[in-house]
């Protein structure tokens, strides 16, 4: 419904008046609005200022708050720093304690070290003392050594002199042996030869006694010749160099017996020997020994029927012992130790010819081979000569 004034006289809406009214109202309204607008703007202005102020305040507060916060952070930082410092301080203290302890330890150690050092020093001093003693000892030993060296030199010189003397003596012995071999034999040849010449050429002028005497002269000359030969052989056995090699004692024995058989073809002697009997010795010297031993066996079985000579070997503690056994005249064991002495004979020359040098020569040969020789026998029941030859020496 429209307000009354806006209704027209006929009763219809009065539009013109309504529009005027509205327009009027609108104008009023517009003014008011404008006023309100202004007021609002003022308010807004005020409000903006206020807001600016507020902002400023707020900013200030915020600043204050910020400052305060920073302050607080700083305080906290300070506090933390203090705490840290305190912590650090505590650590420092711990460290200091440790350091102190370490220092104490070091001091203790140092003390111990000092003690040790003192010990070491004492030890060094002792060593120096010892060294001094040692030095004097060394000096004494040096003097002793020098003396000993001098003594050795003297000994060497005297040894050289002795050697030279020995060489000279050997040369003299050589010369002597040579002289004996040549010069002593020649007169004997004359004695024997011319005695025989007398017996042959002047047989008619000589009576039986004279002939017998010339016979004795010849026998003596021949005996002396054998003595010279035997002594030469003995001397050679001592002088000769020892050259060992394998030697068959059985073969040597067969040769020796064959020679003896040639010299006395009428003798019948049975040689019992193994096919071979090996030893390690100087061929020449061992031959000399076997020639003497077998020669003895041959000689002393000269009056034995069924004469038998045996060469063999037995083992003594695993080592070979050679033996030459005969069933001849034998000997009295009471004189067994005399058998090997030079010129010692257990039989008279009329019983059995001999010079008493043969077994001494045999013993030298065996000794030069590092061996032993011994004999067993009984009068009328033969003799056995045992000997060893050191193996491989």
């Amino acid at each position, binding site marked *: 419904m429209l307000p009354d004034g806006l209704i027209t006289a006929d009763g219809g809406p009065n539009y013109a008046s309504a529009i005027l009214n509205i327009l009027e109202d609108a104008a009023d309204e517009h003014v008011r609005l404008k006023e309100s607008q202004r007021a609002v703007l003022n308010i807004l202005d005020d409000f903006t200022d206020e807001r600016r102020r507020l902002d400023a305040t707020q900013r200030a507060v915020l600043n204050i708050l910020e400052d305060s916060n920073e302050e607080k952070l700083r305080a906290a930082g300070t506090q933390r720093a203090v705490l840290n410092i305190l912590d650090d301080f505590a650590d420092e203290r711990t460290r200091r304690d440790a350091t102190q302890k370490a220092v104490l330890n070091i001091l203790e150690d140092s003390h111990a070290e000092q003690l040790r050092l003192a010990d070491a020093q004492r030890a060094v001093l002792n060593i120096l003392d010892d060294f001094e003693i040692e030095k004097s000892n060394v000096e004494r030993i040096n003097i002793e050594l020098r003396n000993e060296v001098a003594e050795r030199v003297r000994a060497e010189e005297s040894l050289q002199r002795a050697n030279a003397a020995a060489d000279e003596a050997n040369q003299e012995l050589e010369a002597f042996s040579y002289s004996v071999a*040549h010069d002593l*034999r020649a007169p004997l*040849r004359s004695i024997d*030869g011319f005695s025989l*010449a007398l017996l042959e050429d002047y047989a008619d002028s000589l009576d039986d006694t004279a002939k017998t005497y010339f016979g004795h002269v010849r026998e003596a000359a021949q005996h002396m*010749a054998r003595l010279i030969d035997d002594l030469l052989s003995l001397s050679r056995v001592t002088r000769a160099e020892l050259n060992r090699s394998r030697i068959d004692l059985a073969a040597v024995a067969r040769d020796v017996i064959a020679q003896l058989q040639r010299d006395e073809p009428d003798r019948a002697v049975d040689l019992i020997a193994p096919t071979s009997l090996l030893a390690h010795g100087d061929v020449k010297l061992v031959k000399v020994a076997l020639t003497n031993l077998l020669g003895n066996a041959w000689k002393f079985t000269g009056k034995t029927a069924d004469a038998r000579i045996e060469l063999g070997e037995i083992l003594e503690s695993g080592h070979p012992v050679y033996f030459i056994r005969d069933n001849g005249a034998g000997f009295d064991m009471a004189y067994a130790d005399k058998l090997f002495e030079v010129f010692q004979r257990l039989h008279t020359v009329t019983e059995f010819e001999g010079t008493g040098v043969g077994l001494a020569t045999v013993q030298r040969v065996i000794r030069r081979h590092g061996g032993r020789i011994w004999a067993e026998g009984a009068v009328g029941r033969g003799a056995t000569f045992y000997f060893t030859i050191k193996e491989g020496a």
Partner: protein
Amino acid sequence: MTSKIILLVEDNPNDEALTIRAFKKNGIANEIVVARDGVEALDYLFAMGRFTDRIVAEAPALTLLDLNLPKIGGLEVLKRIRADERTKCLPVVILTSSDEETDLMKGYDSGANSYVRKPIEFLQFVAAIQQVGLYWLVLNEPVPPIRVPTR
């Protein structure tokens, strides 16, 4: 047989006499020339000294050489015999007292044909001379005579 001369080099007159006797005992009648030291032996062999008239080519059939000799020793005599073309094949028998190994070795080294040790027992000596004489003068065929260029 008698043309075969025996040279006996021996300084001991007794041994000389006994050696000659031993040859006679064996019926060896060859001429025996005796040289009483090494120089005489070489003089004879090389026709020097008192043997200048001798003809070297007529060499002795056998030389018996002692070792121990005055002036020039037996070994030296032997070496000179062997060193000379005219006598190098001469039969030389060393006849000596020594049976020392060194003498034997030196004897053979110097060119001895044989080495005989003089036995002391005279009958053995006679036997030795018999064998030596028989061998060298009868059994052994000598070196043919050396032809010396005629002057």
